[in-house]
């Protein structure tokens, strides 16, 4: 091993350590930014070391260098620009795109390596384990197209409702057979270009047919799973080119994606296979004509809501995805600030699936300057509801439905926010429509619940101005 090789490997090790420390520092919002900066330092070191190694090694054509530099500059400019421009509500799409390009790059590494091996070594030696090449191409390509479809759904370019292709079962079965068959053939070590191309094409198609039938509100699980896939694909690329840096980084991401997938699936009370089969949430379109709920619904005016909120000691805000859809985060923060000035204690209760990706709602509230000590996770928030005077629900539905505690319905067993334990509940909602699960919410019929029928943004603004009037008088 040359000195250069040793130095580069040591820098890779340092980078890997910095990635782990960086992730560790994300255990608190106070240190998270520093963690991300540690990670950047590790990345820059690893890239510089790679560059130095390539220069030292020589043997590259000038075309090779131009390709390398041009690709990097173009890619990073696109990346920086989209990262600068993206709205916080659109973060899930961007993360999905980064999953796609990460998986795509990993698959391309294996393909480039394969082309190179074939042309240069003429299969005299097999420096790359065929298993790794096959898995890298398979997982990377599925992630690439799957993430692009997911991003399209999140952006609204592709219908968010499940798309069922006629005969999709047959298509998926054929693709699986073709994919596994070609992968198995490659496992035997036969370096066959045609088989690799077959594997690539089936994997690309499979990514599409995998994500198309999955409903929009299941996206938190899908993004997390694709994130895990990307990590695994990068780790496989590490096996292909024998790079411990890629293996470690890929495994870290794989672990992160897997944990988030599990957490999201649990929070939605669905199994991962059930989500991947798809077709759930078709009731979303039928929700508009709902409203057949029997019983008495209490309504209140903006003034009544203002009085209840202003004279409370403790108020818990429960924002759901509807809040983000209505772009009403700023109005919610304004109302919180008004009430705080009157001495009301404010807490934001965040359900894990409030948003289109794990933790999304927290970012949306942080953007409008809600301090993070006020953002309570589900378990912490549930300890607070019994002592709250008012719970104000905006754009959340299934995640607060007490029916989840009883067996025998679509959301039985789903972890919920115990909104019904607060002394009073105010729900801002446009109509009595159902949520994603397609069942009625019995919380709305509870006698301590009052409904304020309005668009989230307008409703909050009305309540806020009513509070202002109350204070002025």
């Amino acid at each position, binding site marked *: 091993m040359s000195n250069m090789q040793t130095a580069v490997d040591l820098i890779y090790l340092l980078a890997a350590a910095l990635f782990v420390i960086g*992730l560790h520092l*994300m*255990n608190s*919002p106070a240190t*998270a*930014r520093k963690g*991300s*900066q540690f*990670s*950047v330092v590790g*990345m820059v070191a*690893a*890239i510089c070391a*790679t*560059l130095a190694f*390539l220069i030292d090694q020589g*043997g*590259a054509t000038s075309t*090779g260098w131009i390709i390398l530099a041009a*690709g990097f500059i173009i*890619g*990073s400019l*696109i990346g*920086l620009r*989209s*990262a600068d421009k993206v709205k*916080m509500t659109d*973060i899930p799409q*961007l993360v999905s795109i*980064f999953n796609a*390009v*990460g998986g795509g*790059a*990993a698959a391309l*590494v294996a393909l*480039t390596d394969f*082309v*190179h091996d074939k042309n240069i070594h003429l299969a005299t030696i097999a420096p790359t384990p065929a298993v790794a090449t096959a898995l890298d191409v398979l997982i990377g390509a599925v992630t690439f197209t799957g993430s692009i479809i997911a991003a399209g759904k999140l952006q609204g370019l592709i219908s968010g409702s499940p798309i069922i292709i006629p005969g999709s079962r047959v298509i998926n079965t054929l693709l699986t057979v073709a994919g596994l068959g070609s992968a198995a053939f490659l496992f035997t070590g036969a370096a066959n270009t045609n088989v690799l191309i077959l594997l690539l094409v089936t994997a690309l198609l499979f990514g599409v047919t995998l994500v198309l039938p999955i409903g929009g509100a299941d996206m938190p699980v899908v993004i997390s799973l694709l*994130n895990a896939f990307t*990590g695994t694909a990068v780790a496989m690329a590490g*096996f*292909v080119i024998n790079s411990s840096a*890629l293996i470690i*980084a*890929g*495994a*870290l*991401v*794989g*672990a992160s994606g897997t944990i988030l997938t599990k*957490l999201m699936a649990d929070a939605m009370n669905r199994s991962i296979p059930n989500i991947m089969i798809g077709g759930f949430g078709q009731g979303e379109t039928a929700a508009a004509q709902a409203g057949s709920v029997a019983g008495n619904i209490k309504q209140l005016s903006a003034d009544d809501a203002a009085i209840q909120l202003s004279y409370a000691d403790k108020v818990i805000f429960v924002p759901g995805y509807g809040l983000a859809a209505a772009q009403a985060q700023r109005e919610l923060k304004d109302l919180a600030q008004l009430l705080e000035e009157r001495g009301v204690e404010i807490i934001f209760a965040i359900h894990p699936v409030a*948003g289109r*990706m*794990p*933790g*999304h709602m*927290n*970012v949306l509230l942080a953007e409008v300057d809600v*301090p*993070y000590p006020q953002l309570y996770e589900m378990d912490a928030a549930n300890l607070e509801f019994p002592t709250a005077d008012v719970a104000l629900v905006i754009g959340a539905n299934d995640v607060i439905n007490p029916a989840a505690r009883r067996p025998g319905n679509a959301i039985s067993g789903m972890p919920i926010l115990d909104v019904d334990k607060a002394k009073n509940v105010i729900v801002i909602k446009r109509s009595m429509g159902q949520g994603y699960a397609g069942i009625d919410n019995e919380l709305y019929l509870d006698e301590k619940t009052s409904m304020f029928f309005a668009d989230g943004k307008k409703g909050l603004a009305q309540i806020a101005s009513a509070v202002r009037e109350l204070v002025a008088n």
Partner: protein
Amino acid sequence: MSQQLLTDLSIFILSLLVGFEVISKVPATLHTPLMSAANSIHGIVLAGAMLTAIQAHTTLGYILAFFAMVFAGMNVAGGYKVTDRMLKMFKPRSQPIAKPSGNSTDSSTLSEVK
């Protein structure tokens, strides 16, 4: 199984375990930045893309290498940038709203474009 493959496999499994341990301690509040940070970490695939790109000698090799570099470059640069943008917003206390600038400007100009 070659010695090299065995070493790689050990590194892979142990890193997975470290990952599970470290990441299970990240609070739900930070799950979006966490995923974004993880996303940037797999931008290390850029190093892999560089190592293979430089070995390309054929037109096909050049094309594949070029796209690998574009994708990996997007991944690593954009990933870190957007993670930092998000983490910057998490503040321990409410800041007095002095002037309507900062975070609100970039999002509002963007919505005007749309």
